[in-house]
């Protein structure tokens, strides 16, 4: 890609480079273009972030603003709910990987193999992703209704089972949330895999067949290695994304039966907006940032290693 900048002449001795108009054109105007965005980011992203680190070292409520050094962090680290929230969040991530990571890959492979009606199936799988997240949450909350007339209970009742308390059941509630997230998200992810799979040159498969590969061999030796980079990206995006889960637990369980679905973001929200303890909430944000930062580092490290191979 040829990079070319406007208003610059390559010849450094060229008098045109020095004229006042050119300086204005070259230095001032580009920054004028940047200023609105810069101001917006400064006010609403960068300054809050720095202020958050600053606040995390203070006790901040409506009346007080007092330096307490690492007290807020200690308060979090000694809080049982804090560790429960992290455990729950990682459990949620883990469940989404078990249930929701391979499903789009398999759907993608199947869609790629389809000889007819590919467009219909593709659209049909994508439709759940079109529904707004809050509506998905409310809809499934209704399905998960624990009373005997709740939809899922009636269905399993027809199979002869007792009504189940679904989201009120502390062992199932997290799984229930993961099922909803997978239902809504698997379709759109599978489209991404489909695009990647359709990009695999047919010659690779031809060469494999000449070598006598059967279907299973072809999948293992050609398909999977070709989409491995995308799978890695999606995996780390999924982990980082699921760590931020908020809408579903907030709308559907509010932290769940006995804090079974209390996630990190949800607890952060409660500390900030129910208890108005801004200092601790800011500390929470810093901790979350560090964890995500480390996860990203692991990802970049892993990518570098796999690129070397």
């Amino acid at each position: 890609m040829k990079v070319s900048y406007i208003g610059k002449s390559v010849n450094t001795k060229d008098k045109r480079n020095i004229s006042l108009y050119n300086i204005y054109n070259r230095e001032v105007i580009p920054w004028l273009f940047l200023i609105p965005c810069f101001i917006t980011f400064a006010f609403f992203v960068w300054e809050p972030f720095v202020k958050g680190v600053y606040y995390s070292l203070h006790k901040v409520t409506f009346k007080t603003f007092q330096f307490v050094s690492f007290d807020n962090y200690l308060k979090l680290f000694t809080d049982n709910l804090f560790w429960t929230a992290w455990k729950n969040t990682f459990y949620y991530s883990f469940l989404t990987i078990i249930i929701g990571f391979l499903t789009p890959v398999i759907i993608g492979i199947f869609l790629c193999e389809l000889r007819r009606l590919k467009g219909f199936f593709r659209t049909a799988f994508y439709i759940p992703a079109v529904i707004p997240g809050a509506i998905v949450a409310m809809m499934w909350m209704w399905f998960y209704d624990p009373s005997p007339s709740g939809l899922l209970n009636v269905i399993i009742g027809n199979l002869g089972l007792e009504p189940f308390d679904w989201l009120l059941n502390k062992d199932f509630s997290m799984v229930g949330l993961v099922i909803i997230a997978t239902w809504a998200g698997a379709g759109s992810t599978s489209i991404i895999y489909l695009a990647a799979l359709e990009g695999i040159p047919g010659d690779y498969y031809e060469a494999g067949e000449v070598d006598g590969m059967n279907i299973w061999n072809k999948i293992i030796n050609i398909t999977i290695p070709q989409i491995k980079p995308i799978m890695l990206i999606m995996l780390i995006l999924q982990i980082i994304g699921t760590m931020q889960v908020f809408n579903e637990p907030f709308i559907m369980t509010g932290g769940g039966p006995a804090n079974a679905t209390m996630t990190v973001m949800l607890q952060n929200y409660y500390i900030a907006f129910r208890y108005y303890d801004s200092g601790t909430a800011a500390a929470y944000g810093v901790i979350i940032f560090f964890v995500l930062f480390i996860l990203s580092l692991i990802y970049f490290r892993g990518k570098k290693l796999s690129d070397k191979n």
Partner: protein
Amino acid sequence: MYDLAIRGIISESEYKQRKVKFLYGAMVVLLVVGVIVSIYPLIWLILSSFKDKSEVFQIPLTLFPKKFKFESYIDAWNKLDFLIYIKNTGIIMLGNVLVSIFIPSLAGYSLAKLNPRGGKILFYLFLISLMTPLQVYMVPLFMNLRDLPIFHFNLLDTYWALWLPAGANAFALFLYKGFFEGLPTEIIEAANCEGASQWKIFTKIVIPLSIPVFVVMIIFTIRDTWNSFFWPYIVLGKTEMQPIMVALVRNFLSLSYQPVVITTVLASLVISCILPVILFAFFQKYIMQGVNLSGLK
């Protein structure tokens, strides 16, 4: 139509084998099951909203309503004040669209073509912003909105608390930047040699060439504004100002405190899905294009 250029794992000759035909059939069955799982809940939702309210929980369950009743929709529209909330969402949308068309595009163009001094540092700052989730800095952001630094305005309970942070859209910035980098510089250089000012170049040459990316941005913004729940919920306390998703959730969560007819609630959910579905149906091409333009890192 079977496109010979794109082929799957199964080859033509393999497909003739009986075992492979069986596997292919099983695969299609699984896909059909998948489609049913994906679509059935939505069909159930839509059809149930047309049922008589006693029929929804009736055992044995019926899928199709015995009689189609539209009262629930009229009821939902009136009782839940849809017009007000849709109007609110529309106002927010307008502001968001204006903000996301002008602010990130100028910056994206500057970074792509104008090479400002210190541009590289800014680029990395923007990139980091893309990777930090909102929850990390949402508390101090909220406090900034409550007491804006330097100006000391209280922006809470106003729509500015939604519009202004919408300008800090790093995704939009990189979308624009990527697109503008793809524009041929020769045309712009030629105009520059003719003595046109940068602003004129941007408005008269670049913008007409960039209609696709602006259309994609508008569609994304409209869709995201309609679907947005979290930030409006936190920032807008007054119920008369809330956008549609917040109002729906607030209404839904209060279900347990008052007897509300279930079909009315279902109808309200269905009504709220209409816009995203229409956007998807008509603009699917642009949405897919948007995915291509942004690319995967």
